[in-house]
């Protein structure tokens, strides 16, 4: 049972407080972890939230992976600790080598902020507890570089090892095989482009993200 979630804050991160709000609303505790600290302060789980770490003037996440905190995140992930990268966080995780593949610019060459339907492809991971394969969720996306790409070898590994977590039912960005989120082999590290923290209230249009965060808090 996750007690405390550490939320990484790089200069340029902007979804850290939304993530904290969502975690707290679901009964979890959360605190900020500053990028230049090399400690993750004994948290039980880590979220790398959305935003533009270090401005993302180079490839997204390419500088963030060198922030001191990422070494601790990497150790934590390799030891089996739950790690969720949302949007820019997903990009950082691929740059850090904790998840395979890369995120390139959307096929339409435009930033896209819109509600999307995604479908669970695998639930054998830290966000899938309590959900079924085939469950459809309404969760917003908000990115310019969300077009997932990887080599054919990686793709076939992702498919055979149930590492594709979500796919879009109506692909907005050109992602290979409609991929919206993936996990590592062990299922403890998940990266996804849609923002579950933005779908935690009916007043805001969807509460479907709550199940994912709930699952993340319960591992």
């Amino acid at each position, binding site marked *: 049972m996750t007690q405390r979630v550490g939320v990484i804050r790089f*200069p340029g991160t902007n979804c850290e407080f*939304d993530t904290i709000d969502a975690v707290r609303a679901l009964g979890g505790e959360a605190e900020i972890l500053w990028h230049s600290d090399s400690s993750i302060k004994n948290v039980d789980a880590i979220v790398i939230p959305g935003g*533009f770490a270090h401005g993302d003037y180079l490839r997204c996440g390419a500088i963030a992976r060198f922030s001191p905190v990422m070494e601790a995140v990497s150790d934590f992930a390799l030891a089996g600790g739950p790690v969720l990268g949302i949007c820019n966080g997903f990009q950082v995780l691929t740059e850090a080598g904790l998840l395979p593949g890369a995120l390139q610019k959307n096929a339409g060459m*435009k930033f896209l*902020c*819109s509600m999307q339907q995604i479908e669970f492809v695998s639930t054998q991971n830290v966000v899938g507890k309590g959900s079924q394969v085939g469950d459809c969720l309404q969760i917003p996306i908000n990115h310019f570089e969300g077009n997932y790409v990887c080599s054919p070898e990686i793709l076939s590994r992702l498919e055979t090892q149930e590492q594709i977590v979500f796919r879009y039912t109506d692909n907005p960005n050109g992602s290979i095989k409609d991929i919206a989120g993936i996990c590592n082999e062990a299922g403890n590290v998940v990266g996804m482009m849609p923002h579950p923290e933005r779908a935690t209230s009916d007043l805001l249009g969807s509460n479907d993200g709550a199940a994912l965060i709930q699952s993340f808090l319960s591992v």
Partner: protein
Amino acid sequence: MSAAPEDASVHRALGLSDEEYEQIHELLGRHPNHLELAMYSVMWSEHCSYKSSKVHLKRLPTEAPWVLVGPGENAGVIDVGDDIAVAIRIESHNHPSAIEPYQGAATGVGGILRDIFTMGARPIAVMDPLRFGPLDDPRSRWIAEGVISGVSGYGNSVGVPTVGGEIVFDETYKGNPLVNVLAMGVLPSERLVLGQASGVGNLAILLGAATGRDGIGGVSVLASAGFDENSEGADKRPSVQVGDPFEEKRLLEACLELLDEGLVSGIQDLGGAGITCATSETASRGGAGMDVDVSAIHSREEGMEPFELMTSESQERMLAIVEPEHLEKVLEISAQWEITASVIGRVTGNGQLRIMDGFEGEVLAELPASTLHDDAPEYNRPMSPPDDLTERRLRDASQGPANCVEDLLALVCDPSWVYSQYDHQLFLNTVVGPGNDGTLLRLRHPSTGEETGRGLAMSTDGNHRWCYVDPRQGTKMIVAEAVMNIACVGANPLAVVNCLNFGNPEHPEIMWQLSESVDGMSEACIAFNAPVVGGNVSLYNETNAVDIAPTPVVGVLGVHPDLSEPPPGIGLPPDSLLLVLGQEPESDVSMGGSRWAWEVGCCKDGVLPEFDLDHAVRTAAFVAESVQKQRLKAVHDVGEGGLAVALAEMAIRSGIGAKIKNHDNHISMFNESGGRVLVAIENRELDDFVKTAAARGVTAKVIGETGGSSLQFGPMVDVSLESLTVASENQLPEALGQGTVNA
């Protein structure tokens, strides 16, 4: 310090008239030197001094018990209860965007955000009313795409959601687009900070980006003159600044942390006129003076002249006034956010602004700080209505080759291609986002995050067609429309901000438009009890001596008192009754100023439909009340394109059609009689609803019922939802989405 009387070409090149030069001469009791002249020229520019408009702006209502800060500060601030204050401001970045669309729009967003966090507020929303030349003009498409990308690129990255706005295309903006940006922020009411320097010995610390040679004279050379032949402003491109949203994001976080820790006694953003404006404004507001050391300014390149350092408009900079004992802590927080901080000034008690090379070094300029503001010239420029006004008003705007179905298909336009490029959801507040009447955000306490159970609503509105035909009534109608928009999401108005985009103030017709518009706005704001808490005037919007149609834009802020359920939205429900609330159009209603008349009938003249402002006030209150009580199944303001376009938007949204009685000719379908709202209610609610409307003094008329897969007006006019949807969705992507050429 004394300088010889100079060659008149110098002050003229800086944008100062001979009379203004003489006034400076008298104020100083000597001839100004070049640095002093450069400082006066930026501060006395139209953009900074409002010298042509001030005399009119005084007629606007600005006070109410809930107004904490009115016009004149960086942003207006109002008290919205629960110890929360809201800071709001709107600005234009028209001229920079005309010649460098991406950077012009990006720095427009950056500048307005600094105005908000200068007040101690965290910016939580941006809105962008945008106006461009026609879609069939390649250069206008290039400008539109660049501006939209600039808002998206800067706003998304800096981390403030763009929650609404407008997009309008018209011939009048060809060559001179209007890029207005509104920003809103929230702060704990006890933390309000003002941009003033006091306390002799306090330090002025320049925070943020290095000062470079960009944007020198932006306010005088660029913003306060029109565009002339051929150049399309290309020669003025170096006067446009370049934005860096990542620098701004760190600056924003650092400043909010400094304010949270109580380390600054005054803070001011650097926008137009750069360090000159920030140092002189803080000093004169605090009744103090300041010594400024130009050698301490961190600059982007070697060898910058003092006048360049003092007037540069490099972006992402702030000036904080700090007591000396807090200096160390301020430098520490700045370092944590990787922000450069330099002590560039000391507050003095003598009211003088002294520019020096080293605090003990040579005095390069010395002038009374307040003269840069308080003594700026004020003009009551000649004004007169256009010569042909009477003649113009006699024309009948309803003539033309009307084809109700085709015209409707041409007038619907889905703006989602634009706003899907903007993050409009950050901060988890957006209950109703862009593409609707008003925007509605959850209102939460900025420090504790605690929900108040209430909502903040905003809308920006302008209509150059109405204001061209009749600037006074047109402006009244846009205020009413903005209020009606927030009523549609359940809010009552509290405050207005305005951005007055007009042509060349040296043309008497333009000053007449401005004056009429201010009077119309004043009357409407009084009627809605929503004072003007801030604004911006953008003049010289002209190309080749042709002025734009007058385009005052208003932003209205209001509160929804009980946000337990989202408002009904615009989508038509099945099997319901459709009613129009508000003033009924006269039987021979004029088409003057309507989009139909301008775009289909090709007539820009005539008169506006009669407008009953009091009825609009009652209607807005009744609509807000009905939304709050959850009595409506759908609600939508009737604006440009009239009833037919409003209905089409409602039908497209939900995929449910409607049958309308009568209204089967272009006049009843497309007239833009003001103050009307379309609502859908359940059949069984009708009697009670109409009774309540009558009790509130609001006309309510059933016009049809919902259902089916087409929109029918009378027996003859029938448009399928499919064709409406295709026409609406394709307009912008077809014109803009295929990539544009740099014309």
